[in-house]
């Protein structure tokens, strides 16, 4: 991160509102950037006011004892970090020299070694705590990533649905092109179909080829068939009814099934559409929706 990025994070850092990873990035940057350190210092002066605004309470007297006892187990001079830039006053420097000069060599060596070990253990404990904190942060991050992953899965499903819809629309366009082409053929014959009282808003027509062997049924305003049912097309003649096929309608009530006639259309007296079970019926059994006389 550069200074510009860090400056944006500084208000959140001062208010303690950054995630642990961001906080660490700010602190690493501050190690080497005096300008950002100065800006942060101004922010921290402001948040220190917030700290000082809370009701002041004394802790128990035993806390002082616990803190001082804890560090009493560590030898003098145990901290191994570099000395900060503040110059020592004379008395303090003198005190420090006395500590070092007054100890016999062997005892001093033992103290130094045990001190280093104690510091090492103390630091390791601190490091372990930080690793635990980091681990918890990572767990939280994983949970967030899993949530993102689920969102992505939903998105992929939606894209697949859109792709399916697109393919369906492309197939419909091809059907329409085919219909327009065939309707324009010379000699195509159109017969309007009459609706029944059960479907008064339905309009339909039969468009038959000049050779009487194929055609289209074009229908609009027809409701979707009942659950488990479909519409079936029949040709009626002296040899009884002949099934041409079953079809359904789209959400707007439109359909244009392409049909092949078993024999020349002139051999039939009429065409009819009924509602039948979904797989079709061997004999017309349902209510008649549309019909047209053929001769």
């Amino acid at each position: 991160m550069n200074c510009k990025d860090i400056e944006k994070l500084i208000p959140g850092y001062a208010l303690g509102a950054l995630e642990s990873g961001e906080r660490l990035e700010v602190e690493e940057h501050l190690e080497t950037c005096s300008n950002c350190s100065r800006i942060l210092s101004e922010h921290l002066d402001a948040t220190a006011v917030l700290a000082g605004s809370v009701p002041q309470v004394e802790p128990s007297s035993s806390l002082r004892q616990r803190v001082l006892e804890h560090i009493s187990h560590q030898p003098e001079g145990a901290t191994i970090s570099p000395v900060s830039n503040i110059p020592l006053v004379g008395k303090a420097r003198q005190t420090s020299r006395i500590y070092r000069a007054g100890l016999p060599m062997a005892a001093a060596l033992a103290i130094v070694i045990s001190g280093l070990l104690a510091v090492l253990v103390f630091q390791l404990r601190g490091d372990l705590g930080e690793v635990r904190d980091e681990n918890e942060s990572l767990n939280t991050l994983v949970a967030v990533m899993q949530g993102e992953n689920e969102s992505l899965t939903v998105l992929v499903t939606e894209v697949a649905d859109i792709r399916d819809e697109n393919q369906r629309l492309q197939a419909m366009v091809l059907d329409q092109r085919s219909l327009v082409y065939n309707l324009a053929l010379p000699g195509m014959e159109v017969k309007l179909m009459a609706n029944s009282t059960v479907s008064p808003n339905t309009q339909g027509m039969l468009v038959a080829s000049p050779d009487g062997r194929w055609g289209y049924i074009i229908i609009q305003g027809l409701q979707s068939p009942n659950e488990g049912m479909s519409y079936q097309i029949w040709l009626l003649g002296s040899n009884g009814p002949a099934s041409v096929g079953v079809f359904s309608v789209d959400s707007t009530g439109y359909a244009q099934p392409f049909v092949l006639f078993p024999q020349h259309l002139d051999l039939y007296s009429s065409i009819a559409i009924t509602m039948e079970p979904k797989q079709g019926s061997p004999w017309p059994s349902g209510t008649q929706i549309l019909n047209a006389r053929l001769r």
Partner: protein
Amino acid sequence: MPNDGLLDEELVTLLTLGEKDALAVLYSRHVRSVYSLVLHLLQDAGKAEEVTQEVFLNLWKKAATFRPERGKFLTWLLTTAHHRTIDELRRARRQRNAFDEIAQSSKSEVSMVESPLERAERLEEAGTVHKALEILPPEQLQVVVLAYYKGYSQSEIAQILNHPLGTVKTRMRLAMQKMRASLSQPREL
């Protein structure tokens, strides 16, 4: 104590040499400020003492990380304590399954739109809120309270208030600008 007359920054230098008396003096001077802040956030005296103890032991261990050129010692110490306390708050929240808590209590947290303000007003009446907060408009005061006193991160605040993350960051930035400007005569803590 022999070191009683030294400045905080001088005492920190002695800490880096392992002078325990220096820690005793710094403890006596600042434990009240540290403990009060920690207790205010955690609302649990036992845990507050634990965290306060960690803060002073950390001071003993990492005194050399203090840089006097970057600001006052007490400011640094309070920032360390605040960050450590927020870590504790967040750890406790995670243990209570933070996401569920936020989702379930989002209504009550949103109602904190009023609650922090009421709290701020109450503290203000008691004369305990510094003038730096009086100048903040309600929406900026709200994010400052949720962040500094409640320990929520920017993204958590955005979730609680149902605002975009950018809005929360902007309000924090503006709030800090105003608070800094009001500190033309900073008081000694």
